[in-house]
C-alpha cells in the first residue's frame, strides 16, 4: 500500500518535472543574449535619428515598451500623459507599469537579475545605476545621445550631464528631473537668508516657539526630516558636504579616493552631527518621526521658518490646495560653511578662496548635495533592439525642452528643473502661478546650486543602499535618538563601511567610486 502510493507520487513528480522543463527555458542563456544584443545597437541608432524629425514615418509601429516607475501621481503622470502623443508620432506603444516607491529598487533589480526582463526601461534614481551597470543590465546610451539633436544635451545642466547621467565617461541615463537639496525660508519673516549652517541654527533658534501662521499655537524654527528609514541619511550629508568637499564635484564626500577610507571619522562629520542634532531642538517635538512628506506639509501650512528640501517645496508652495505660504516663501542655496576639512589631518581649517576652497563665495564654501539625483530614464540592455530604440526615443522626447520645460512647472509631475533653459526662462513659471518675485528667487537658488562646480554627487557605488540606508542611516538615527554617543556613531559608520567595502572588494569599490566621480 505504502510503496504503491510512494511510486505513484514519484511518477507524478517526475511527469511534472518533465512538463515544467519542457515549457521553461534554461536560465543561463540570459548571458549570451546580453552579448548579442549590444552588437546590434549602432545601426539601429541611425535609423532612429533619421526617423524622429519626420513623425509621419512612424518608425516604431507595432513596438511595445514596458516602462516601470513608482506609483505616482508624480513622475508617472507626465509619462502616462505624453505616451499617447508619442504613440501617435512614432507608433510605439508605451505601457507605464507602477510599483510602490519603497520597493522599486529591489523590484527592478530582481527583474533584471533573474532574467525575467518584464521591464524594457526604467524611470528610476540614477543613484542606483552602478548596481545595474556593472552586471551589464543597462544599455550604454552614449552614441544615441551623440546622434540625437532633439534632446539638446548641452542644455542640460553640466552636473546632470557629466556626473549624474554618466558613469566612467559613458552616458547611461536620460535625466527627466533634477534633484538636489536646497533651503527654504519664510520671506515674510526673514530678510537675509542664512549663508552658513551656523546662521541657519541662529535663525531657527530665534523663531522656535513663535506663532508663525497666526493660529495662536507656537510654531517651529526649522523643519527638517529626521525619520529613520526615510531621508535622514541624505540630510546628514547635506550638512556635512560644505565642510568636507571644497575642490569640486570630483572630490566627493564619502570616501577618500586614495584608499577608500570613509570620510566619517573626522571633525567635519562630527560637526555635521552636532548641527543636525541641534536642529532637533528648533523643530517640532516629533522631528525624529517626520519624513519629507511631513515637513513639506508643515512648511506649506505655515508652521516653519526654515526648511531644507528638494525642489518640491517650490511647486507645492504655489499650489492653493496645499499651501498658505504661496507669497511668503523664499528659496536659497543650501547653507555652506566658513571652515573646510583638511583631508590629511582630519581637522577643520578656515576656508580661504585662493587655497583650499577655490569655489567659495564671500568666504563661504557651498556644496549643494544632489541627493537621490533626480528621476532618470534607463534602458534595459536585454530588451529587443527595436524596443530599446523606442524606449530611448521616448525618454529623449520626454526630456526635450519642448516637453520638459512645461512639465517642470507643473507641481503634479514631480519634475524639478535640470536644464539651463528651465531656470533662465522665468515666464513659464509665472504662467504656472508663481509670483515674479518668488520665481526669480526660486530659480535663482536653483541656478546657484546647479551652476556650482562644487555640487556633491550622491553615493553610487554597488550596494550604496546598504552603505547609506542601512549602516549610515541606522547610526545617525541611533545618535539622534540618544542611543549612542557621537563618537560611537562615527565609529559605527566607519567600521560598518570598512567591513562592507572589504566584503565587496576594496579595489572594485574604489574603482567604481572613482568611476562615478569621473576620476581615472
Amino acid at each position: 500500500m505504502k510503496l504503491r502510493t510512494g511510486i505513484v507520487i514519484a511518477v507524478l513528480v517526475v511527469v511534472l518535472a518533465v512538463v515544467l522543463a519542457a515549457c521553461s527555458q534554461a536560465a543561463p542563456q540570459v548571458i549570451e543574449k546580453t552579448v548579442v544584443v549590444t552588437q546590434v545597437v549602432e545601426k539601429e541608432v541611425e535609423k532612429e535619428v533619421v526617423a524622429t524629425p519626420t513623425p509621419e514615418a512612424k518608425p516604431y509601429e507595432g513596438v511595445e515598451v514596458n516602462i516601470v516607475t513608482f506609483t505616482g501621481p508624480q513622475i508617472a503622470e507626465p509619462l502616462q500623459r505624453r505616451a499617447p502623443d508619442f504613440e501617435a508620432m512614432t507608433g510605439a506603444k508605451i505601457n507605464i507599469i507602477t510599483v510602490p516607491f519603497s520597493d522599486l529598487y529591489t523590484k527592478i533589480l530582481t527583474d533584471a537579475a533573474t532574467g525575467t526582463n518584464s521591464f524594457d526601461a526604467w524611470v528610476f534614481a540614477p543613484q542606483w545605476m552602478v548596481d545595474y551597470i556593472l552586471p551589464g543590465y543597462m544599455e550604454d546610451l552614449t552614441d544615441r545621445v551623440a546622434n540625437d539633436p532633439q534632446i539638446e544635451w548641452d542644455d542640460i545642466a553640466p552636473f546632470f550631464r557629466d556626473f549624474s547621467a554618466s558613469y566612467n565617461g559613458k552616458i547611461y541615463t536620460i535625466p527627466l528631473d533634477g534633484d538636489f537639496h536646497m533651503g527654504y525660508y519664510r520671506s515674510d519673516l526673514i530678510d537675509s537668508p542664512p549663508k552658513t549652517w551656523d546662521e541657519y541654527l541662529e535663525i531657527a533658534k530665534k523663531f522656535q516657539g513663535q506663532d508663525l501662521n497666526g493660529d495662536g499655537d507656537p510654531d517651529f524654527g526649522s523643519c527638517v526630516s529626521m525619520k529613520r528609514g526615510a531621508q535622514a541619511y541624505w540630510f546628514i550629508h547635506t550638512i556635512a558636504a560644505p565642510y568636507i568637499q571644497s575642490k569640486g564635484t570630483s572630490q566627493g564626500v564619502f570616501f577618500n579616493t586614495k584608499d577608500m577610507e570613509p570620510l566619517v571619522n573626522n571633525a567635519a562629520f562630527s560637526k555635521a552631527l552636532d548641527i543636525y542634532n541641534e536642529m532637533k531642538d528648533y523643530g517640532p517635538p516629533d522631528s525624529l518621526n517626520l519624513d519629507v512628506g511631513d515637513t513639506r506639509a508643515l512648511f506649506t501650512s505655515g508652521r516653519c521658518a526654515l526648511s531644507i528640501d528638494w525642489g518640491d517645496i517650490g511647486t507645492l508652495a504655489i499650489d492653493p490646495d496645499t499651501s498658505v505660504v504661496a507669497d511668503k516663501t523664499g528659496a536659497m542655496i543650501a547653507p555652506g560653511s566658513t571652515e573646510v576639512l583638511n583631508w590629511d589631518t582630519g581637522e577643520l581649517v578656515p576656508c580661504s578662496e585662493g587655497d583650499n576652497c577655490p569655489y567659495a563665495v564671500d568666504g563661504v564654501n557651498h556644496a549643494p548635495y544632489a541627493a537621490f539625483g533626480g528621476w532618470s530614464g534607463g534602458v534595459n540592455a536585454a530588451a529587443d533592439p527595436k524596443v530599446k530604440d523606442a524606449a530611448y526615443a521616448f525618454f529623449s522626447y520626454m526630456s526635450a525642452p519642448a516637453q520638459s520645460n512645461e512639465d517642470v512647472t507643473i507641481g503634479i509631475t514631480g519634475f524639478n528643473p535640470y536644464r539651463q533653459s528651465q531656470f533662465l526662462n522665468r515666464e513659464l513659471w509665472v504662467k504656472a502661478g508663481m509670483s515674479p518675485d518668488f520665481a526669480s528667487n526660486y530659480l535663482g537658488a536653483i541656478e546657484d546650486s546647479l551652476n556650482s562646480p562644487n555640487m556633491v554627487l550622491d553615493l553610487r557605488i554597488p550596494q550604496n543602499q546598504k552603505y547609506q540606508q542601512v549602516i549610515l542611516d541606522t547610526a545617525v538615527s541611533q545618535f539622534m535618538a540618544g542611543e549612542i554617543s557621537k563618537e560611537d556613531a562615527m565609529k559605527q559608520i566607519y567600521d560598518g563601511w570598512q567591513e562592507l567595502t572589504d566584503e565587496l572588494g576594496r579595489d572594485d569599490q574604489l574603482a567604481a567610486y572613482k568611476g562615478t566621480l569621473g576620476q581615472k
Partner: protein
Amino acid sequence: MSVKSKLFKRKNINAPSPIAKIISYTILVIWTFVVLFPLYWLAITSLKHPIDVNSGPYYIPFVDFQPSLYAWQYVLFGDLQNDTIRPYINTVIVALTSATLALILGASAAYALTRFRYNPKLGTILLFIGALLLDVVLTMVGVNWAIALAVAVAVFLILMQVLAKRFHRSLGNNDIAFWLISQRMLPPVAVVIPIYILFQRLHLLDTRTALIVTYLAVNLPIVVWLMRDYFQSIPIDLEETAAIDGASRYRIFLSIVLPLSVPGLVATFLFVLVFAWNEYLLALFLSGANAQTLPLTIAAQNATRGPQWWYMSVLILIMIAPVILIAIFLERYIAKGLLVGAVKG
C-alpha cells in the same frame, strides 16, 4: 429532554443579571468606540482637502471643515482609476478563490489528522529532505533544475527501497500538524525571492494563479490548525453510527462533520479570506501590471510627497467595504452554528 426545555435552560445560563448587563454594555460601548473611532477618522479624512488634514485636527464635517469628494473623485474616476479598479477585481478573485481552496483542502486535512493515524517513517522524511537538498545543491551548481529534480527523485526512491526499512522510529499526527504550522514561521521576506524565482521558471509571474497558489499554501496551515480543534470537539459517536449504517468516509465528512462545524468553518474562512485580501509583500513581487492587488495601491500612496492621507483613507474604506459585507452575511451562519452546537449534545 426536549429541545424546547433545553433552549429554556440555556437562556437561564446565558441571560445576565441587571448589574452584569450594565457592566457588559459599558465595556461593549467603550470597545465599540475604540474600534469605530479610527474608522470614523478614516472616513472624515477621506472627505478632507489636503490643507484640512495638514492644518488639522478637524473632527466634524460641515462644522469644522467643508467636506469634499475630491479624494473619492480622484481614486474612483480620476488619475488613480487605473490603479484602483483592476487591482480591486484582482483582489476579489484572488482572495475568494484562495480562501475557498484553502478551506476545502485544509478542512479535509484537519479531519484526516483528527480521525486517522499517520505514521510517516522518520527515515523516509530524512531521505526526502536529503533528496531535496541534493536537488537544490545541484540547481545551484548549475545543473538544469528539471534534471536535478529527476535525479533527486530517483535517488530518493532508490534509497527509500534500500534504507527505509531499517528505520523504525516514526512520527505521528502531531508532528505533521506542527510541521504544517511551522511553515508559517519564516517571515515572507525570507521566502519571497525563492518564490519569485519559482514562479518565474513556471512562467506564472504576474498572474492571478501565482497569487492564488501562494496564498493557498500560506494559509493552509492556519485552516488545518483551527479546524483540527473544531473536529476534535465533535463527538465521534455520530460518525460511528453512520459508518455502521454503511456510509463512506467521504459521505460522513460531507454530511455529518462539515454541517456540525459550520461556526468554525465560517470563522476560519473569514481569516484566510482576510489574510489573502490584505497580503502585501508576496503580492508586490509576484505581480506586475496585470495582477496587482489593492494593498499595493494603498502602500503606493506614500511616495515622494509623503503619505497622501486622503487617498489612502478612500482606498482603505473601499477595500474593507466588501469584507464587512461578507462578515455581516457570514455572521448569521455563526449564529446558526450556535444552534447546531446547542442541539448536538
